[in-house]
């Protein structure tokens, strides 16, 4: 792979497990995917599937109080991040890679003004005067559509609505024009109207500064709206990936299929929804075989015995399922619970 | 007349040389140095500084540097003229003629005259406790000239000189200028103007009392002896600080922040001895211990019950608990120390320190004690007394008393002891006096019908009083000795309180303190500081 078509972010075989429970399945287990320049990649999956852990691993932002072991490789612009020192990571954070979080209500420091929180980032990463920093802060607030930005600088977070706070978060993330923006469920806690606003802001900005976005969500609607490609995670593993259109229209993995059909559809009203049985496995469950197996309607014996390998296809598609392999075809039907 | 009296500052423990206070005295080695300051750490706060109005001995200790008496006790415990130049008994001893020293100046520059003595005396007579003893026999004060005057009595009044010189329990007559007396009348004095080697600077209650050297002081031309004789102020300033915490008093002397600390722990004597920075000073005679009865209420309004206690008590155990080391306490059945003219070694014979549990039980039976718990009431702030109370309880219970030890705070205790309306709130109180200066008469204010704390009011009290009365009017010393034995006998047969033992006080001096003389009341004239 030449310098030119090198991926902006490339994660390969990432494993994260928490030392507090070493005997259990790792929270993230052999995850690999990449993000290209200017691309928006969505990661979808149910709660607990390891999306946030993956995202936090990129910037090594895991809670300090819990020790964890990370292995694999995370390359950003070709540089390995996992071996970087804390100091070098600080240079990267907020500067080249920015991150916004799920809960806008609690992600801003309640005791500091918006202005100081914004200017702090600029002063940290760029050598500018106070005045310039201020001007930049105002500019970025205007960019994300906050009216009267100048006067907002002296506001405290609690004086803003949820949507405004999330916009401030975005403004903060974009201050240093990062190459990659990681958004961990940025709209989940927000009302539909505000969610739409935020998505529009993100799209707008992406066009403007050509940043790549890694969008973590559990809502296929968001993915459909904003992403170019999508990665589906289940129980710490990537189970499917591909172009958004391909995955949504033609899901390969039974989990993706189940998820999509569980969503109340616009279209003809249905009496009952399709549903996936059971719930996501606990870390100590289903450690052998395919971890989706207990909930899968099309499982066979092989699924319980052996973990399927991740298979990559044309057009950046991939799936982790026995279906469509010879082993599956020859295997007998698994015992149904 | 008291030639035979041996030195008063004698150690009770000459047999054990290492505990001898003599050995530890910072002897007057080297030349005196002028200047500097002595800080004295006091264990408590004097209630007020009016020497006529308070009985706190600390007040007296300090103000003896400011005020002086007509007479002062010398090393042989004989009251010798001090501000007085000479004296003479006249008129069948009913008149005491005194001639003052001339040219003695008060700190305000005024010269001492008979008028000042008159004013001071009359105030003393009116408000001081000892004045109360004198008053019934006093006739009038007669000024003869600027430096001469007469005290006139209705009867011969033998102990007068001793009383007005006695610095125990603040009986001493201290001479103040007339103006001062007139200004304050019977109110508490807030200024102090005396004739002593140090003058009063200021007093911040609970904090410190400061005195400074009086430049124009003219010492008497006599060798120092006891409280009498030449007083020279070497240091410029004396500061008496209230330091209630024992550890701090000691620590302060060790670090030379204080040069002297009153009343430190006898138990730590050995430690102090080995400390090169300090000199322990065993002050003896220190305290005279008693068990005071409440004679106004059963069971101790009955002599048999008192006898039961007398025979129940084990003095050695009590003394060990209260004082510790046997070097620091000794038996004494008499009112006065062995060695003084009044000492009566035969007093209490057959009854003093004769623990006999069977006899005690017999007496108790005879007394008709009904088993109501008796209350030993004491101030829990006084470690010696509270420890003693606990030991006493155990001893009394052995013979069949039921005992309730009540250790309360000082204010409550003194109130209950004195309260005439609540006579039955206590039965026994452990007390101790600073050993009084020689004359049995001082005891008259405590032992007698309804005096001090005892609520005593029966024929035994009257007999006791009569014994004192006789002593009072007898001026012939030899007859007085005989009469004092009479008093002792009366005391032991009526047991108004139980004589326990005498014990030493322990003070601590800095090694830099020089010229200090161990006396029952510490004083700081003729003393200097040498920091070499």
């Amino acid at each position, binding site marked *: 792979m030449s310098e030119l078509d090198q991926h902006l972010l490339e994660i390969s075989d990432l494993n994260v497990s928490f030392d507090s429970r070493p005997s259990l399945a790792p929270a993230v287990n052999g995850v690999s995917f990449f993000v290209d320049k200017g691309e928006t990649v969505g990661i979808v999956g149910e709660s607990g599937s390891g999306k946030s852990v993956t995202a936090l691993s990129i910037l090594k932002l895991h809670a300090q109080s819990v020790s964890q072991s990370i292995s694999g490789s995370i390359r950003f612009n070709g540089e390995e991040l996992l071996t970087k020192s804390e100091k070098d990571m600080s240079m990267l954070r907020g500067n080249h890679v920015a991150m916004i979080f799920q809960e806008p209500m609690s992600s801003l420091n309640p005791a500091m003004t918006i202005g100081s929180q914004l200017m702090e980032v600029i002063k940290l990463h760029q050598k500018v005067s106070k005045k310039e920093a201020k001007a930049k802060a105002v500019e970025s607030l205007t960019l994300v559509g906050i009216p009267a930005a100048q006067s907002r600088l002296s506001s405290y977070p609690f004086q803003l609505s949820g949507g405004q706070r999330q916009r401030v978060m975005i403004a903060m993330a974009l201050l240093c024009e990062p190459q990659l923006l990681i958004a961990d469920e940025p709209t989940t806690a927000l009302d539909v109207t505000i969610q739409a606003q935020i998505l529009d802001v993100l799209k707008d900005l992406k066009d403007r500064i050509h940043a790549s976005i890694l969008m973590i969500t559990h809502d296929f609607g968001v993915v459909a709206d904003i992403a170019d490609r999508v990665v589906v995670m289940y129980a710490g593993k990537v189970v499917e990936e591909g172009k958004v259109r391909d995955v949504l229209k033609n899901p390969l993995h039974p989990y993706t299929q189940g998820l999509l059909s569980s969503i109340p559809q616009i279209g003809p009203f249905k009496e009952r929804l399709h549903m996936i049985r059971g719930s996501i496995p606990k870390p100590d469950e289903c450690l052998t075989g395919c971890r989706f197996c207990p909930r899968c309607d099309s499982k066979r014996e092989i699924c319980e015995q052996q973990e399927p390998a991740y298979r990559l296809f044309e057009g950046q598609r991939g799936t982790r399922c026995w279906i469509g392999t010879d082993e599956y075809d020859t295997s007998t039907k698994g015992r149904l619970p | 007349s008291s030639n035979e009296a041996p030195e008063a500052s004698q150690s009770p423990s000459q047999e054990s040389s290492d505990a001898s206070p003599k050995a530890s005295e910072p002897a007057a080695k080297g030349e005196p140095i002028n200047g500097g300051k002595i800080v004295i750490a006091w264990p408590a706060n004097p209630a007020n500084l009016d020497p006529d109005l308070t009985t706190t001995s600390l007040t007296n200790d300090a103000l003896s540097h400011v005020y002086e008496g007509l007479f002062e006790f010398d090393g042989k415990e004989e009251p010798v003229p001090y501000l007085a130049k000479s004296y003479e008994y006249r008129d069948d001893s009913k008149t005491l003629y005194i001639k003052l020293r001339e040219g003695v100046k008060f700190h305000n520059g005024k010269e001492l005259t008979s008028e000042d003595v008159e004013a001071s005396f009359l105030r003393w007579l009116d408000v001081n406790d000892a004045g109360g003893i004198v008053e019934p026999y006093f006739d009038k004060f007669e000024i003869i000239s600027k430096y001469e005057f007469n005290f006139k009595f209705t009867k011969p009044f033998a102990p007068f000189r001793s009383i007005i010189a006695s610095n125990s329990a603040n009986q001493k007559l201290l001479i103040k200028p007339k103006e001062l007396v007139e200004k304050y009348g019977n109110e508490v004095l807030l200024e102090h103007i005396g004739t002593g080697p140090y003058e009063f600077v200021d007093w911040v209650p609970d904090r410190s009392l400061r005195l400074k050297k009086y430049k124009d002081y003219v010492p008497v031309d006599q060798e120092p002896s006891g409280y009498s004789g030449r007083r020279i102020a070497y240091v410029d300033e004396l500061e008496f600080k209230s330091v209630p915490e024992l550890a701090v008093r000691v620590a302060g002397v060790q670090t030379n922040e204080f040069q002297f600390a009153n009343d430190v722990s006898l*138990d730590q004597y050995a430690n102090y001895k080995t400390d090169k920075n300090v000199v322990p000073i065993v002050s003896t005679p220190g305290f005279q211990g008693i068990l005071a009865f409440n004679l106004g209420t059963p069971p101790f309004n009955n002599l048999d019950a008192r006898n039961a206690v007398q025979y129940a008590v084990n003095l050695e155990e009590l003394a060990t608990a209260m004082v510790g080391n046997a070097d620091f306490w000794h038996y004494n059945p008499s009112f006065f120390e062995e060695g003084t003219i009044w000492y009566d070694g035969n007093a209490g014979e057959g009854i003093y320190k004769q623990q006999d549990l069977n006899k005690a039980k017999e007496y108790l039976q005879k007394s008709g004690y009904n088993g109501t718990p008796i209350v030993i009431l004491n101030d829990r702030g006084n470690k010696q007394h509270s420890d003693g109370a606990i*030991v006493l309880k155990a001893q009394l219970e052995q013979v069949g008393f039921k005992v309730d030890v009540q250790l309360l705070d000082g204010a409550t205790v003194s109130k209950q002891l004195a309260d005439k309306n609540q006579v039955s709130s206590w039965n026994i109180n452990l007390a101790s006096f600073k050993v009084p200066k020689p004359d049995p008469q001082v005891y008259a204010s405590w032992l007698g019908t309804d005096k001090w704390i005892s609520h005593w009011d029966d024929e035994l009290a009257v007999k006791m009083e009569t014994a004192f009365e006789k002593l009072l009017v007898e001026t012939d010393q030899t007859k007085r000795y005989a009469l004092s034995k009479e008093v002792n006998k009366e005391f032991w047969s009526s047991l108004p309180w139980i004589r326990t033992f005498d014990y030493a006080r322990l003070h601590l001096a800095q090694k830099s303190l020089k010229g200090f003389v161990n006396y029952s009341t510490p004083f700081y004239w003729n003393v200097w500081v040498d920091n070499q």
Partner: protein
Amino acid sequence: MTKVKKKHAYLFIGAFIIIFFVLLALFAPWFTRFDPLALAVKERLQAPSAKHLLGTDALGRDVFSRICYGARASMFIGLAVVFLTTVLGGTLGLVIGFYRIADSIISRILDGLMAFPEIILAVTLAALWGAGIKNIIYVLTFAYIPSMARVVRASVISVKSLEYIESGRAAGARNIYLIFRYILPACRSAIIVQATFCFAAAILAEASLSFLGVGIKEPTPSLGGMISEGRDYLGVASWLSVAPGTVIVLVVLGLNLLGDGLRDHLDPKLKTR
């Protein structure tokens, strides 16, 4: 896994220390060879030895026995104060937190009482009522009720608005039931923390009261009283105050561990998963 074990370790160590001293106190007569009140004046101020494990005090009493019995008195005071404070202060806090009616008035009064320094209150009341275990308990209870009530009140108020209370109400629960089954368990950790604090404070306050001369009635031993008495002998017989001091430190430490452990243990969310 290890986290779980560690948390239990606190509970165990704390409980061990406390149980050890409780047993020592309860069964003091079995452990001790000497009567704590028995005077042996001749043997005063002896250093620790085989005969007297922790030496003797100024009246020749065995310090080890006195500590056992003193722990009894101190722990009794601590427990009684904690019990009374928790019951009275807790009830008060529940009532004013839950019903809010008398809240503003009672809170005011509690403020007023908190404003009184507890020591001055204790000293004056002890002077008024006299010394003795019972009065110390009353005094300290009186002094700690306001803070307990306030803590409970605050936690009741914060719990009261939670959804599950409403859910209980929808299920038909009456106020009394809500208070005992819903509110009280939620206040438990606050109460435990405060009770731990009270216990420690009570033991120490007893010591301070002894220092000021209004502690437990002599000659009954108490840890605080022993430290206070022993301080005059620091130079010659340091064990007199060091030994009871160590016991207090251990008890308070154990109690803190126990309190923390208990709090975590009672929290179902933190229970072993």
